[in-house]
């Protein structure tokens, strides 16, 4: 029989799959990531504290699995390096009148360093506030905003370069 814990996880699956897709870009990789998250969550369920957010706990497990995978794979950068903000507006971004295409967006996401992808996914896909996203990702607020800004500048530049314009 399914217990309450398992039922709650089943209810979370659509959101976990959406988050994973934005991180990995590929449907099969995304479901592998969700499956890893679910299996680890079940095997460590005694570590979850009732009353805390189960969704965030599993997302944290998925983040770790995702970062491990990126490290192993070595094809995408884990991090863009320094966290300092570049305040210079990109003129190419300013001139781009975007019409966002889902596939182009997904491809652009896949080119971001993993840590920026995580920040962007938490806020723009999962819809968390900055404070929530920082908590889930276990990073300082300043680190989160810097990754968000760099990630989004890169996305816009990438979409502009792909000619995804109206």
């Amino acid at each position, binding site marked *: 029989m399914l217990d309450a814990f398992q039922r709650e996880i089943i209810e979370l699956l*659509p959101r976990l799959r959406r988050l994973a*897709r934005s991180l990995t870009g590929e449907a099969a990789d995304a479901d592998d990531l969700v499956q890893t998250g*679910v299996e680890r969550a079940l095997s460590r369920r005694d570590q979850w504290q009732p009353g805390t957010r189960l969704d965030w706990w599993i997302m944290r497990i998925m983040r770790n699995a995702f970062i491990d995978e990126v490290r192993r794979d070595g094809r995408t950068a884990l991090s863009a390096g320094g966290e300092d903000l570049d305040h210079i507006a990109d003129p190419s971004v*300013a001139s781009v009148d975007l019409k966002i295409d889902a596939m182009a*967006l997904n491809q652009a996401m896949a080119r971001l360093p993993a840590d920026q992808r995580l920040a962007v996914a938490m806020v723009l896909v999962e819809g968390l506030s900055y404070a929530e996203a920082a908590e889930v990702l276990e990073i300082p607020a300043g680190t989160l905003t810097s990754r968000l800004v760099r990630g989004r500048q890169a996305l816009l530049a990438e979409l502009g370069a792909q000619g995804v314009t109206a």
Partner: protein
Amino acid sequence: MTITDAMLIAYVDGELSAEEKREVDRAAALDVAVATRLAAHQRLRAGMADAYAPILDEAIPAALLAAVKGASDTKVVAFAPRRALPAWTAFAAMAACLVLGLAIGFGAPDASLVASDMTAKGKLASALDRQLAADQGGAAIRIGVTFTDTAGAYCRTFQANGVAGLACRDGEGWRVPVLSAIAPQASDGFRTASSLPAAVAAAVDERIAGEALDAAGEAKARANGWSGTPVR
């Protein structure tokens, strides 16, 4: 003052104070470059939400549901690579489970199938005697994998009436060393081979000698009355 992308993004994300928001509004009204950048970030936010939203409505893959349900379940596929079970066994087991999932609900282990001394009886005994995995029509009892155990006896996995088990040939009958309840059906009524109960999967893994029988081997074993050490 200079309006940074960080401010525009925070504006778009609803993270600015009322005062900061007014500042951005003013700047966007005065400077078309700021307004354009702001619009780009607004589109990006909306575009991201739209791009991934359809995934929420997708059907959940059976493997994921099985992962949630079979917390401790060993998967058939988990030992398949080592034992090199032929592909048809997976198909047969899957088909068996699918049909079973539709045909019957979850119930308590059925005393009409297994005697108190853990030997198969009634319909289970006849299914084990007669049914071939590749050809079992709409039978209520489904045979999964047939293999030879390390002692040379034939063993077969089966599922019926909310239980799954392993039966091994013992004299003229079938001993059932492992019988395990199957978790309730997925909401869509489907089950897959990957959710074979852990106890059964482990029992197979423990006993199997070599590879599972293919369809021809299974038919031959039946023809020989499931007796003796099989000819390979």
